[in-house]
């Protein structure tokens, strides 16, 4: 990671993504951005603000609502020397165009024996908690991470968002860049304030495949991604008041997973809780736990725990949705139960 020492400003994730895109478009003429409402509107979630004015409609393309076509086109652009960044507003919408992603983008390099790579970025919003119903609230991290050939990243804060975006565009592989609506910094969605961070103006990258220990602790490891990093940090702060020292790991990249950092933290604390707002079964939380447990890995003092969204569609009504979403209180309760059972 190159660390910039120049000016920093506090930015939202949306602004940080927009800045990264603008800087890379200025640096690399092969980068172009396309998607629905990404031009004039600057992206429904603000990830492409100012790009149309600065780079014009040749490189900043509002597409028809034709995901099958423009995701396929992105694969073709990537195979032809360009570096397309395609936004699909909500991760829930990917059913429309999944073939181009999991059968073309993800496999192009392999099928061609490394001769035709697929350097493209797919940006999409994830997450619920604001009553938008079950076709606008999913996360689906594991759905994408399950597919070989795709890289999947999700920032928890603006500094990482910019660095991960620059890494994603420069990566020679398809990278799914997920951003959580609760962290995006769009006023109309509310925003976890901790996601708004100092961001260097200069060019820097946050490496793909490297997790971060964002709070050090000794009693339990809390692993999160995107929004759930903040739930873990809130829980860690609450636990500290009761004398429990929690370490928090921000995955930052779901695939490839930074297994070494997870294992090292679990080995250090001996306890593991994974917090994931995606569907629980067959998900990121299971993969993290398997990472620690398999191959005679770290000996945990307690069985590991998952706090994840249960295996049900996301309901509209807030009384149901908030009942099942992960939150800091659930994390605290899980840790306390773990410590009581095996001090």
């Amino acid at each position, binding site marked *: 990671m190159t660390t910039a020492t120049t000016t920093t400003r506090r930015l939202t994730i949306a602004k940080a993504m927009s800045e990264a895109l603008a800087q890379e478009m200025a640096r690399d003429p092969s980068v172009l951005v396309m998607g*629905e*409402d990404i*031009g*004039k*509107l600057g992206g*429904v979630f603000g990830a492409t603000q100012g790009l149309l004015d600065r780079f014009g409609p040749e490189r900043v393309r*509002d*597409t*028809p*609502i*034709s*995901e*099958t*076509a423009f995701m396929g086109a992105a694969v073709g652009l990537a195979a032809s020397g360009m570096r397309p960044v395609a936004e699909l507003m909500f991760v*829930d*919408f990917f*059913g*429309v165009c999944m073939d181009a992603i999991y059968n073309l983008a993800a496999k192009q390099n392999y099928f061609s024996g490394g001769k035709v790579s697929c350097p493209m970025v797919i940006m999409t919003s994830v997450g619920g*908690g*604001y*009553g*938008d*119903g*079950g*076709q*606008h609230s999913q996360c689906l991290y594991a759905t994408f991470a399950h597919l070989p050939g795709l890289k999947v990243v999700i920032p928890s804060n603006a500094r990482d968002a910019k660095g991960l975006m620059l890494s994603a565009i420069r990566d020679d592989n398809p990278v799914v860049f997920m951003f959580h609506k609760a962290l995006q910094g769009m*006023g*109309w*969605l*509310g925003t976890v304030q901790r996601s708004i961070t100092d961001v260097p103006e200069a060019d820097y990258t946050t490496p793909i495949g490297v997790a971060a220990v964002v709070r050090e602790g000794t009693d339990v490891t809390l692993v999160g991604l995107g929004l759930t990093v903040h739930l873990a940090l809130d829980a860690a702060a609450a636990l500290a008041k009761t004398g429990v020292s929690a370490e928090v790991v921000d995955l930052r990249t779901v695939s490839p997973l930074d297994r070494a950092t997870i294992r090292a933290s679990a080995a250090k604390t001996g306890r593991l809780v994974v917090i994931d707002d995606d569907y629980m079964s067959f998900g990121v939380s299971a993969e993290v736990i398997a990472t620690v447990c398999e191959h005679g890995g770290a000996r945990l003092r307690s069985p590991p725990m998952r706090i994840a969204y*249960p*295996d*049900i*569609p996301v*309901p*509209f*009504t*807030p*009384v*149901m*949705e*908030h*009942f*099942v979403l992960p939150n800091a209180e659930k994390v605290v309760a899980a840790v306390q139960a773990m410590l009581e059972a095996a001090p």
Partner: protein
Amino acid sequence: MSTLESTAPSRATNRNQRLWMYATMVQSRHFEALVKVAYLEGKQPLFNMAKGPIPGEMHLSDGQEPCAVGVCAHLRPGDAVTATHRPHHIAIAKGVDLKAMAAEIFGKKAGLSGGRGGHMHLFDPAVNFACSGIVAQGLGPAVGSALAAKLRDASDIAVAFLGEGAANQGAFHEALNLAAVWQAPVVFVIEDNAYGISVAKRDCTAVESNAIRAAGYGMPGVHVPGNDADRILAAAGEAVARARAGGGPTLIEIETTRLEGHFMGDAEGYRPAGEVEALKARDPIPAYRARLLAEGFEAEALDRAAGAAIAEVDAAFVFARRADYPAPEEVFEHVFAGEGASQ
């Protein structure tokens, strides 16, 4: 087959039908007015989509009422309708239970789906109505419903409503071809409100009128200008009669207007200055009332019908606001058919 410009006279003869159309348009507009009031509760002065008695996105149908009533005037409860993320006017015209629909939008237990669906996922099997949140999602299901009716030897038909943006989705083209190959009794109704969120139709659609695309699928295509309930009634009447008589599918594109933003809270910076004011000056409901009066309808009769329609909406909102929320634990019910709790 050729593309037809609908030239049906604006002098429909069925007095009761036209009175119903007027009253139903008024009812729909009043429904949206009460949704607006409730939606903004808890969202002022700071607009946060997660707050208030109705969270999430809210897509209002103001201006598009003529499409709903002109088509649904010909439909029976057994006819299937699939609608879009902007569904209220169509649901109301199809006869969806107003109390249960309002309660669903408030996330209450007495709602159509007990609060699980929300405003984009309204299901009322009593009148064969469903809607969903992703563009062009309802077309395939409408073809299926139509085929089911044909296989049952019923004279029921299906109608898929879609926006003009959906005509650029692969699902649109596939569904039209399939419907024509199967000679399914289905009518595809495009509500062309000129915008897919921020992107104008002219900037993302290769043809001026989607009606001409019907030629590619061997079915009649009808273009209905003017957002005029009577002309829509006439065009839909021919299409519905053709479908019921075994004559196969029809594509209708209606020029309509979106008087509100894509969703509530949309700043609409992408609209030319003065556009919304100009559209509101051509509001189809007062225009329709003026026509009916000019043709000899008595103001008292119109007021009586409209008043009754408004009173039903008022009662539905009183019911919805007073209704209880579901128990949070009910979130686990209905994931699979024939089961209660699934965890």
